[in-house]
């Protein structure tokens, strides 16, 4: 065990050295800064930022391109806390829980303190997630080698159902519908077993299916432009006058909350297609449940703010774990990252620990540097960075849309991809208006091919016998969780299970 840990540490240190070049440090700097700005600007999300920047990195080598995207991703999730604290509008959906205590703190004249706490939480969340990325990814990668068609089929269904459930807790069926629409979207184009063109109607542009990056730029970029222009503009609570330097006391006082939120964030990150916003909400809810200062939550609680920000940033490395080991994204920005890896010739998935184990540690090093840069910029450039919030949306949004259009076109130089961006933008806007979450849709588009090939392969292997789909150990666990996730949304059934659970624990049941 010690030898394995030392080996891991050695590989990590060697990966750290890879990026200690002036060019890599330069890319790290500007991309993290850009990520923070993207996150801070209302209407520009982390997914949109990573998707747009992907279109700018085609000509770079894979290591630098992925490093830039990772820095944008980490920076954007952190940057969104600025807007959440000062304007009460989450810069990215990941910072929605941050508004609950961040904005009240700003109203009390403690905007600087709130930003310092957000910086502390974000850095520590990333560090906790990074630790698990370094230790769990190799283990999961080796375990994933046991997966066959049956397991991959259930992994796709499990991902869609669990992601759909967790991203639409009020109405899970909408999350599932979004996921299955995503899967259906992936059916367009040439299928991978007989090379038959499905739903292309003779259009050559559709033979390769809908390109992922234009679809994501549309669903997260164009849809966001429409939403931002429709909604009224937010008002700033006032510039911070107090110190933005993080306080050591916040870490020592709330260390339990920080570790708990980091763990929750990482686990939420590993679950396919759930993402940073859920990580923040679950961490926040857990912190409130366990807090001794519960009454302060929602009124400017430092503990609540630190929980939300630790939780959302811990999701980032967590979401990369399934990307590297299973080629399944843990969040929407991680989905773009996965697509970018494919574009740059990196093949994540179960074979990664066999073919290029060093890449896993390079990714850990990238997260490390991104976290370092995020912490530095967060402390040193907080006040100058706030000037970007003064840019009116009427000037920012046309520029964003110009980038959406040219970015979608630039991948293969096809005007058709601009139409794909527009189509997915409109679809994304309408679905969001009707409270359908976007993350399962994106996950569906990515997992469609995996589900398609593995269901058919599995059925051919067993000559139509579906028993192995339900009896193999990993399949059994996956389908049981999937079924429970669906069945427990049926109210009478859920109540019956709750009654049975309470009856089985008489000590607790009697007290209520």
């Amino acid at each position, binding site marked *: 065990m010690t030898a394995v840990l030392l080996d891991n540490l050695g590989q990590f240190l060697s990966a750290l050295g890879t990026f200690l070049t002036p060019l890599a440090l330069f890319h790290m700097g500007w991309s993290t800064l850009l990520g923070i700005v993207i996150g801070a600007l209302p209407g520009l999300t982390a997914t949109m930022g990573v998707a747009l920047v992907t*279109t*700018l990195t*085609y*000509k770079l080598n894979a290591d630098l391109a992925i490093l830039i995207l990772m820095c944008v991703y980490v920076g954007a999730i952190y940057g969104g806390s600025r807007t959440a604290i000062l304007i009460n509008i989450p810069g990215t959906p990941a910072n929605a829980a941050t508004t609950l205590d961040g904005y009240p703190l700003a109203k009390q004249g403690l905007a600087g303190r709130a930003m310092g706490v957000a910086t502390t939480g974000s850095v520590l969340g990333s560090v906790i997630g990074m630790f698990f990325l370094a230790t769990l990814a190799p283990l999961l990668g080796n375990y994933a080698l046991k997966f066959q068609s049956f397991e991959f089929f259930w992994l796709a269904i499990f991902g869609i159902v669990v992601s759909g459930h967790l991203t639409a807790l009020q109405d899970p*069926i909408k999350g*599932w*519908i979004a996921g*299955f*629409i995503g*899967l*259906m979207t992936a*059916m367009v184009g040439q*299928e991978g*077993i*007989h090379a*038959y063109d*499905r*739903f292309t109607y003779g259009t050559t542009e559709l033979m390769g299916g809908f390109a992922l990056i234009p679809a994501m730029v549309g669903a997260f970029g*164009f849809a966001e*432009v*429409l939403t931002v*222009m*429709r*909604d*009224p503009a937010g008002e700033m609570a006032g510039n911070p006058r107090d110190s933005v330097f993080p306080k050591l006391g916040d870490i020592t006082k709330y260390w339990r909350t920080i570790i708990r939120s980091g763990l929750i964030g990482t686990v939420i990150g590993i679950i396919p297609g759930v993402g940073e916003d859920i990580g923040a909400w679950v961490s926040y809810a857990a912190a409130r449940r366990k807090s001794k200062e519960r009454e302060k939550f929602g009124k400017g609680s430092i503990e609540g703010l630190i929980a939300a920000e630790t939780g959302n940033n811990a999701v980032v490395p967590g979401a990369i774990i399934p990307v590297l080991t299973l080629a399944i994204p843990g969040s929407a920005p991680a989905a773009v990252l996965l697509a970018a890896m494919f574009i740059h010739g990196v093949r994540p998935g179960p074979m990664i620990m066999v073919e290029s184990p060093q890449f896993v540690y390079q990714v850990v090093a990238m997260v490390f540097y991104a976290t370092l840069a995020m912490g530095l910029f967060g402390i040193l450039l907080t006040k100058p960075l706030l000037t970007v919030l003064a840019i*009116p949306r*009427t*000037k920012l*949004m*046309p*520029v964003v*849309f*110009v*980038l*959406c*259009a*040219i970015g979608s*076109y*630039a991948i293969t*130089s096809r*005007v058709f991809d*601009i*139409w794909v*961006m*527009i189509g997915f933008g409109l679809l994304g806007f309408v679905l969001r208006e*009707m*409270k359908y979450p976007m993350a399962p849709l994106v996950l569906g588009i990515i997992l469609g091919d995996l*589900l*398609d090939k593995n*269901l*058919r*392969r599995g*059925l*051919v292997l067993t*000559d*139509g016998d579906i028993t192995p789909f339900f009896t193999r150990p990993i399949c059994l666990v996956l389908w049981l969780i999937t079924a429970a996730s669906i069945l427990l949304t049926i109210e009478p059934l859920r109540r019956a299970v709750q009654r049975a659970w309470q009856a089985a624990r008489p000590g607790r049941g009697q007290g209520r």
Partner: protein
Amino acid sequence: MIRADFVTGIVLILGSLYVIFESWRMPRMEHLGAHPLSVPGIVPAFLAAILIIFGGVLVIRSVMLGGHRLGLSAAKAREVLARPGNQRLLTTGVLTIGYAGILIGRVPYALATGLFIFAFIVLFEWKKGLAPARTARLVGCAAILAAAVTLLVSWSFERLFLVTLP
């Protein structure tokens, strides 16, 4: 929302029925000796069947809450369209789709982009009764920003990323 759910449910059911019909028409690859369970239509049909169930749940749920009474009328449509947020949305939709869907590919890229940014800023920032001096300033500002962004985007994509502009 229950009315929207009702319409979504109907659209899902009809769309999924169409997918099943199309999947049924896909070749069975018998001439290649393919296994009948590996045919291309099997997975789309499976997904469509699940979406029909979800669509059905949406329809039943909304009908039980009275969502099938859509209550559409011209007066209501006018009222919805008159809301400032929806007017901004409509203007944004027309400008963005006009630019990306119609102008790009037909008009030189730089001209289309410059026009789009200029029109966007002027349309959203100009207000009735704005003093001539402020109007001139707004137009000047919009023109400078449009020119600067167009030049920067065109140059960086063409020279830096080696993309042939549309």
